[in-house]
């Protein structure tokens, strides 16, 4: 801390405030992690099955993140106040100051608050874990904590009586912890940690009812698809780490290529483009991970299947928070993508193209879904496409803002769907079969749904309008006219599929469960809480060839019935075993209403300054822009030098705050001097943009964020967008009334009569045949022929070789044994034996056993001996 004070003195003007919550932001993630452990070990013994731990930890987390958000606002404001002085001070440095003067307003770079402990070390470098507080992370942390809390409250009632109630809350809490860990990551490794923990929780929660093969299959598919993308995460991290290593070692000692700030600085330093293809490869690889996680085309297929999980899971993980992890990653180390894909100069980036394709592809698929959750799932995919499109075209702020608003209204929509199935359609999600006319029975849910739908479709003044249209507007403003039209087309489609879903659910004649009719299999469900996933294996796994999926419904129902007739909990849902639709209870409606309120109002966190041309309101209303968007300001680096945080780390410090001193490397080793400001849209005399991200920062200074430009909306564009949305409403409304309401003969059965219509319908119904490609060909090929072949090689070639060698040696041995050992060596031995034996046989006759004979022999022999002796002696 001493060093920090010193450097602050050097900076003089830049004394930013901090605070307990900002510095201890890690608590926000640690508390849910402890909550998870408590649920795991003591949950079963608690009166509410451990959910109290989950709720308490999320509430505590919300307190921490709210406090941090408050303190961040103060920090930014303090930067602004001091900014005036800084401005004066900076003039003496004479660097980049003129621009700041033109802008008239000084906006220094607001340093993130970093708290880190040594987590691991390798090759002499130490890597940290801890919390990293800047505008983006604080915003999302608060969002995650808030939505997690609401969803947990919702779940209290929604999954009550579930056979794995405790595990459900454990996984949900662990998920929140993982997401918070990821969002507050100050380095890539911690980010990967949170990223994968979320993947694990996603797996556990999708497969929550794993007795059903469909559910476990979906869980596997989700984990596996995301994991395919994660190859990119590992590779990309490695590439960036090593590509930036030298530059960072030289310019930012004490930091490594894992640190977010270091990566940002490196990417904009000019060294990155000098390093050749490395940054492009790294950025592409990282984006592949985002494709997997954020359900972008063509790896989006897992997301609709992920709806096999309970609805709160779909609401929390698979729409509002986890799936935006990819978007978060791109926005977190945005400079890398900015530089790699040349977004500064209007390059057509990989990200933008994928985003645009995803918008349209997913929105089209949303049309042919009968399952309300799948409509929302494809809608999520499509909205994520908007965010990616924004990021890919330089519209960083609207994309992040869209993450923020989308979380509210999409979460709300899912909870509405859950509420409908809970109380309205008897655990079914089939819009065609079990819904219709529910607006009378469920007014609160209906109201929230309508508000959120309007927000999603981008109707003024709901939240989606402010964020989504801002994306589209900025895309156009940054020179991507075609992509802007794609975005507008997507808005049209959005309006249409939401109208269709709304009509099928809330209007028209009540059908099936909504009309109080229960299917034959219902008593199986009545005793136990369970969601029916509409299309079980039959539709989802098989190629759809005929127009009507009706036959598979009964199969799916029968399939589900098998599992649930044996064990049940009679205590649950006694209140609606045999009655029609009704409104859900307070625990369900309150979160929905809160979210709907935010869907209505959250857009005003950053409303586009509509009245700007008239000079009535300035940029001050754009709070997200002010507080979240990092300032694109070059910052001086002065290496204090000599201070290495490797010296006195160790366990003895524990949670002691003195650890901090070594952690915030940017404070400790560098003194950052706000170098003056470029107005974000500053243009040089020749019309070329200058500043961070456009020109290499001067020697001795670094940039952490590119100077993105912001579109100024005009009434013409707004009107165009709104007209498109209204046209969408009208078209879809008319279609629904004609097709579903009046059963217009010209439309009904069109897919059977018209080849083009049928082809299109089947193409969509089969989800562009991507699932077929993945599962029938790639997965099956790897899992069956390829692995079998490898194993065959193992058993027959490798092991065969070994066995062959063994056999050959054995045969050689046998041969040697038989021919050499037995015949030659042993032959000699045996030969001597034989000789002895034969001799013995020959002499056998002498052994008569007769004493006299023996005597004769003895004497004879003696006589002979005597004679010989005599003869010898005589001679």
């Amino acid at each position, binding site marked *: 801390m001493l060093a920090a004070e010193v450097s602050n003195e050097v900076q003089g003007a830049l004394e930013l405030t901090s605070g307990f919550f900002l510095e201890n932001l890690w608590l926000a993630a640690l508390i849910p992690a402890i909550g998870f452990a408590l649920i795991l070990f003591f949950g079963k013994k608690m009166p509410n099955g451990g959910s109290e731990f989950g709720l308490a930890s999320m509430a505590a987390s919300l307190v921490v993140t709210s406090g941090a958000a408050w303190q961040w606002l103060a920090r930014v404001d303090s930067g602004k106040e001091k900014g005036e002085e800084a401005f004066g001070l900076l003039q003496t440095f004479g660097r980049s100051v003129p621009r700041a003067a033109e802008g008239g307003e000084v906006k220094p770079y607001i340093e993130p608050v970093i708290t880190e402990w040594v987590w691991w070390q390798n090759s002499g470098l130490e890597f940290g874990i801890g919390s990293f507080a800047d505008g983006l992370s604080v915003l999302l942390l608060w969002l995650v904590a808030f939505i997690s809390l609401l969803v947990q409250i919702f779940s209290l009632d929604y999954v009550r009586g579930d056979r794995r109630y405790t595990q459900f809350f454990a996984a949900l809490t662990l998920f929140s912890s993982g997401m918070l860990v990821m969002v507050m990551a100050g380095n890539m490794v911690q980010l990967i940690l949170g990223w994968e923990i979320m993947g694990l929780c996603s797996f556990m929660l999708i497969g929550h009812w794993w007795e059903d093969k469909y559910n476990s299959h979906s869980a596997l598919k989700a984990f596996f698809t995301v994991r395919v993308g994660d190859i990119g995460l590992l590779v990309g991290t490695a590439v960036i780490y090593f590509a930036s290593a030298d530059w960072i070692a030289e310019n930012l000692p004490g930091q490594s290529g894992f640190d977010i700030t270091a990566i940002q600085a490196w990417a904009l330093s000019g060294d990155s483009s000098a390093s050749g293809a490395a940054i492009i490869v790294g950025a592409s690889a990282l984006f592949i991970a985002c494709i997997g996680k954020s359900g972008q085309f063509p790896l989006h297929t897992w997301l609709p299947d992920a709806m096999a999980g309970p609805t709160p899971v779909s609401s929390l993980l698979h729409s509002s928070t986890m799936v935006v992890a990819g978007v978060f990653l791109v926005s977190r180390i945005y400079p890398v993508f900015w530089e790699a894909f040349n977004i500064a100069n209007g390059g057509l980036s990989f990200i933008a193209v994928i985003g645009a394709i995803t918008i349209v592809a997913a929105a089209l698929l949303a049309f042919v879904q009968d399952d309300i959750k799948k409509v929302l799932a494809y809608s999520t995919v499509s909205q994520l496409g908007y965010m990616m499109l924004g990021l890919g075209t330089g519209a960083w702020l609207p994309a992040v803002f869209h993450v923020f608003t989308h979380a509210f209204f999409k979460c709300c929509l899912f909870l509405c769907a859950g509420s409908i199935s809970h109380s309205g359609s008897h655990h079914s999600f089939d819009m065609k079969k079990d819904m219709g006319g529910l607006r009378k029975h469920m007014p609160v849910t209906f109201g929230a749904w309508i508000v959120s739908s309007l927000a999603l479709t981008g109707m003024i003044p709901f939240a989606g309008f402010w964020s989504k249209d801002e994306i589209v507007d900025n895309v156009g403003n940054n020179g991507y006219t075609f992509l802007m039209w794609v975005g507008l087309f997507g808005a049209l489609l959005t309006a249409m599929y939401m109208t269709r879903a709304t009509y099928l659910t809330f209007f028209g004649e009540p059908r099936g469960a909504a009309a109080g009719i229960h299917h034959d299999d219902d008593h199986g469900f009545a005793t136990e809480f369970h969601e029916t996933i509409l299309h079980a294996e039959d539709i989802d796994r098989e190629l759809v060839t005929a127009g009507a999926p009706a036959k598979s419904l009964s199969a799916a129902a029968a399939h589900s019935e098998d599992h649930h007739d044996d064990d049940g909990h009679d205590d649950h849902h006694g209140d609606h075993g045999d009655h029609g639709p009704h409104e859900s209870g307070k625990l369900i409606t309150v979160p929905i209403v809160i979210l709907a309120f935010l869907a209505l109002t959250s857009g005003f966190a950053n409303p586009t300054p509509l009245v700007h041309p008239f000079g009535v309101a300035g940029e001050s209303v754009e709070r997200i822009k002010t507080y979240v968007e990092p300032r694109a300001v070059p910052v001086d680096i002065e290496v204090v030098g000599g201070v290495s945080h490797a010296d006195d780390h160790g366990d003895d410090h524990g949670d002691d705050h003195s650890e901090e001193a070594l952690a915030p490397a940017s404070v400790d080793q560098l003194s950052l001097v706000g170098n003056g400001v470029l107005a974000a849209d500053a243009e040089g005399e020749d019309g070329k943009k200058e500043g961070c991200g456009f020109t290499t920062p001067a020697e001795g200074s670094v940039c952490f964020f590119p100077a993105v430009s912001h579109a100024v909306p005009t009434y013409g564009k707004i009107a165009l967008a709104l007209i498109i949305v209204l046209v969408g409403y009208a078209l879809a409304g008319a279609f629904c009334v004609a097709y579903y309401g009046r059963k217009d003969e010209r439309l009904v059965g069109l897919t059977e009569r018209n080849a083009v219509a049928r082809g299109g319908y089947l193409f969509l119904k089969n989800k562009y045949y991507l699932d077929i490609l993945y599962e029938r060909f790639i997965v099956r090929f*790897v899992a069956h022929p*390829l692995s079998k072949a490898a194993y065959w090689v193992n058993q027959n070639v490798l092991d065969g070789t070994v066995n062959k060698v063994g056999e050959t040696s054995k045969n050689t041995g046998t041969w040697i044994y038989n021919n050499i050992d037995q015949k030659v060596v042993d032959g000699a031995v045996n030969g001597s034996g034989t000789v002895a034996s034969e001799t013995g046989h020959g002499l056998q006759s002498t052994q008569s056993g007769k004493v006299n004979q023996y005597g004769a022999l003895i004497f004879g022999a003696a006589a002979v001996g005597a004679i010989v002796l005599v003869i010898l002696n005589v001679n």
Partner: protein
Amino acid sequence: MNNLTDSNWVLSLGTFLPLLGAVVIMFFTSKDDDQTPKVIGIVTAAATLAVGVYTLIQFDYDQADRLQFFVDAEWIEVISSGYTIGLDGISLPLYFLSMVVTLLVMIYTWDNMPDAGNPKAFYSLMLILQTGMAGSFIAQDLILFFVFFEVVLLPMYFMIGVWGGEQRKYASLKFFLYTMFGSAFMLVAFLALFFQAGDAAGGVESFGFAHLYEFGALIDRDVQVWIFAGMFLGFAVKVPMFPFHTWLPDAHTQAPTQGSVILAAILLKLGTYGFVRIALPMLPKGAEAWAPVIGILAVIGIIYGALGCLAQTDMKRLIAFSSVAHMGYVMLGISTLTEFGINAALYGMVAHGLITGMLFFVAGSVKHRYHTLEIKRLSGMLLQMPKMGWILGFAAMASLGLPGLAGFWGEFPAILSAYNPNEALSEELFRVLMVVAAVGTVLAAAYLLWLYQRTAFGEPGDEFKGQSEVEQGKHEGLAHSLSSAANDHGDHEVIKDVQRTEWIAWTPFLIAIVVFGVYPQLMFQVLDPAVTALVETINAGIKLP
């Protein structure tokens, strides 16, 4: 080398105490008495572990790069081989791990004696095995190392051959011959190294590691390459690396649970440890020449092992094949010849020991209950044995390299390090290897989760339905199953969830997997200085003219 501490007796004690226990069991217990050998075995192992803990406490962590508890006594003077032992940051985790694993395996055996019986022989063999393993990790002399290395072989041979499955004879013989085959080449390489280094040192001959580190590097490059080839064969068989791995699935499948656990947790590490401790620093130029080969074979092993896993129908065999893949990551890390990679490899060795050991434990217990490990027949384990099912899931997640669990810290830095191998190696080649190895992580997820889906999820098959304690408890709760419960009791033994001795044996594994996953610095701070010193030796050797 300096004697850093006075307590240099602890290593010898820690190594030979088990041998003493084995002698006691062999000569002072009767064959009919089943309990006494178990008690003596466990007490001895616990005492050994206590010595290990003392070692851990006495170890000077600030000097993890130097040999501690160093002893250099005369042993076989005729061949210039000494009783040289010592411990540094590289050996410490493995040395300690071997003690922990032996004790836990013995505790597990208390209630889970393999069918062939005879705890007297079993426990004495395990203790002898422990001496061999610990000795290999502390030896600082080639001959001493070789002796310990080979001591390990025999108990394992008997373990598989006596207490193994149906094809135990084939498996044990294969294991023995395969390893001996490698050892033969290794010994020749050791001797060649001894004489060549002696020449390079101007006639001063010694088998001591320190001597060979210094003078091995002076040997001509061509000669180094040949000597390395011999060592490569010896160690690669032990690791095992593709294509020398085929003994492993058979040995694992046939070995008793205890044998599998020790084999996976410690024995395989002797090979990789040999590479790190002996082959690389003593023959730096040989290592440089062989590194691409090792890297390629390692990556083939990763993909190939994973594909082999996908084809398996037997749970234990699948886990065995996964070892091939995981050891591939370890070898990939080693082949980069960088601090990053070798650190990762050493971390991966310990992590793999814990995780795969755990998986084998579970497989053994499943076999014990269901009398089969055929994946097709196992299903709905989570319903029948919820705790066992969760533990299997946990171990599977750890095995596929989930961050926050120990496996990640072996896998991720190893992949990372391949991007930037030693300056003397081809960057392009290793970058390709990195991508392929990263694909391997997906395949790992595939086979482990697929295994988990097939065995743990779903409903139990008809064959075992209703036989578990959990289900029967539920049936009785519903009060309609007096007859069926009686039926079940009559026909089959009840499938129980995790038992007490299993908990005792497994909990340390589970805790260690989490602790090393959450706070990797615990081990990296021990490894890193030693590895840095080692890589300096290697680099200096490579750069020699």
